[in-house]
């Protein structure tokens, strides 16, 4: 009798435990990820991205990488993120003022390079997007870019066995939603850290500038650094630099977001890292070369009430200085970044 009671009660006890385990299983089915470390280059500020809400993992990064290179995120399958953000151009569109979108359309702005995004608080030239995770939604749904609906993108991903597997590996189960998709893309682009240019090596004592480069650096620190602050070479402010609006686009920049006339024709100060690769320049790619940009600052500025005081009266830059400045700007090219196999198309073998 005693034995029976013991057996029975232990059975009940075990059953209760099993039910418990069953519930646990729903939450975490032996779910394990490999954490990736994010290294802040020496001397750089703390990143603004909240890594706690989206911890970097190998699985999340690889999912984001696959998404970044997948044309199925667009309506007709032809336009991936990477079609406008090319690694060899530091993830800008090489040699294009505007990028090509769905059905023979053009974008209305020049595609910026993608790197060091963990330090950036607002996105787009007008700062309209307030979180890195939300950024991919704009090109995916824009009629002149990828032209797809978010629901269609999610449906395509859900119907793909490989994606379901990768979502499970990254997030614990096969649920595909916008949050997971965009967090995975963020994990990929957050890892795009460009900090290995000659400039960086010089700062670390691993390389030395030649004479034009060091002269250019000194001129840069006198004339450019108030907007293009080191080490990211931007202060992330929005400024009107006296570029009149293109009448075919009528892009007034930040004013569209704030509805404040004081923000007319203000655009985000671009970082200058990899500037040699990201031509043409300005928000609409109107200048083909750095020389043209500098020519604008010394002779082309068309001042309006909103034009930045730093450039309103045109800058004094000599031909000699332009030459040295260009030598310096070329030290900002990170050739290891644009060849880093971690960031390449996962479907390609190198």
């Amino acid at each position: 009798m005693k034995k029976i009671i013991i057996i029975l009660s232990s059975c009940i006890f075990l059953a209760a435990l099993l039910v418990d385990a069953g519930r646990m299983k729903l939450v975490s089915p032996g779910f394990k990820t490999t954490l990736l470390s994010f290294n802040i280059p020496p001397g750089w500020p703390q990143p603004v991205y909240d890594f706690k809400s989206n911890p970097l993992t190998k699985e999340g990064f690889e999912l984001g990488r696959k998404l970044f290179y997948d044309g199925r995120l667009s309506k007709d399958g032809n336009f991936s993120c990477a079609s406008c953000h090319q690694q060899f151009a530091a993830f800008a569109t090489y040699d294009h003022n505007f990028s090509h979108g769905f059905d023979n359309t053009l974008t209305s702005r020049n595609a910026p390079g993608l790197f060091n995004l963990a330090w950036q608080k607002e996105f787009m030239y007008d700062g309209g997007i307030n979180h890195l995770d939300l950024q991919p939604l704009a090109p995916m749904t824009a009629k002149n870019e990828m032209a797809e609906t978010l629901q269609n993108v999610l449906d395509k991903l859900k119907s793909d066995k490989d994606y379901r597997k990768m979502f499970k590996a990254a997030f614990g189960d096969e649920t595909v939603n916008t949050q997971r998709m965009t967090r995975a893309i963020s994990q990929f682009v957050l890892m795009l850290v460009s900090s290995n240019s000659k400039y960086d090596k010089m700062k670390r004592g691993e390389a030395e500038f030649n004479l034009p480069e060091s002269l250019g650096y000194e001129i840069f620190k006198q004339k450019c650094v108030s907007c293009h602050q080191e080490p990211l070479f931007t202060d992330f402010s929005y400024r009107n630099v006296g570029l009149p609006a293109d009448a075919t686009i009528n892009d007034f920049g930040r004013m569209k977001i704030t509805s404040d006339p004081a923000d007319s024709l203000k655009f985000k100060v671009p970082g200058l890292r990899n500037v040699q690769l990201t031509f043409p320049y300005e928000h609409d790619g109107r200048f083909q070369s750095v020389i043209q940009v500098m020519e604008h600052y010394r002779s082309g500025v068309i001042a309006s009430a909103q034009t930045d005081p730093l450039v309103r009266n045109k800058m004094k830059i000599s031909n000699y200085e332009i030459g040295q400045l260009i030598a310096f700007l070329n030290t900002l090219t990170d050739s290891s970044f644009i060849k880093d196999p971690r960031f390449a198309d996962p479907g390609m073998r190198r």
Partner: protein
Amino acid sequence: MKKIIIILLSGFLFTSFHHSSRFVKAKHKLQLVFHNQFSGKEMIADSSYQNAFGENFILKGFRYYISNISVKEKNGRLHNISAKYFLVDMADDSSQTIELAIDKKDFIGLQFMLGVDSLRNISGTQTGVLDPARGMFWTWNSGYIMAKLEGISGDSKANSHLVTYHVGGFKKDQQTNRVINLNFIESHELAGNIFRVDINADAAAWFNGEHKIKIAEYPICHSPGALAVQLADNYSKMFSLAGIR
């Protein structure tokens, strides 16, 4: 031996108690049932309605976020009963009833928010009804569309005679979420366990309220700003109590 049995049995009792405590249920249920209307008439997609200015309007869509639901106790104190978000959609019957657990059954009013509070507008991609794939999010100027009213009107000068009011904005001077208070005429004490509150949401108020918004003048609202704020002021008055059971 007895000891062993006692230990085992208490172990069993402990685990079962553990389970039940995890599923503590509030004693009562609050049901909010939204009745979407236009000038007192039930909303039916593709039906025609008329606003206060005599403008005819063929209805295509009507959706809005509800959140931060509180009940007002007899002593006037607000008691938050849900931090969840709900998207009430004219096209989805199940979205029009919100069911929540409450532990009180004696209260004198109700408060909720129409819209999405600012924190959710700046915290990256959300899930559930707040998933941007639900079509209530502006991708180019981050932020939620708090409410949408869509249709077609001969008085609209927009393309295809569209009337499209997508109302959003959460920054200073652009705020479009609104706190709604519905006070009961008398304190309601309930005999049963389900407390049902029927609420009318009348979209005619979008046009005719504190601000007079004519389709002929303003057929489209697609961004945060002055027009969106005016529409929000108007829709803050679209709710009324239809009944309490």
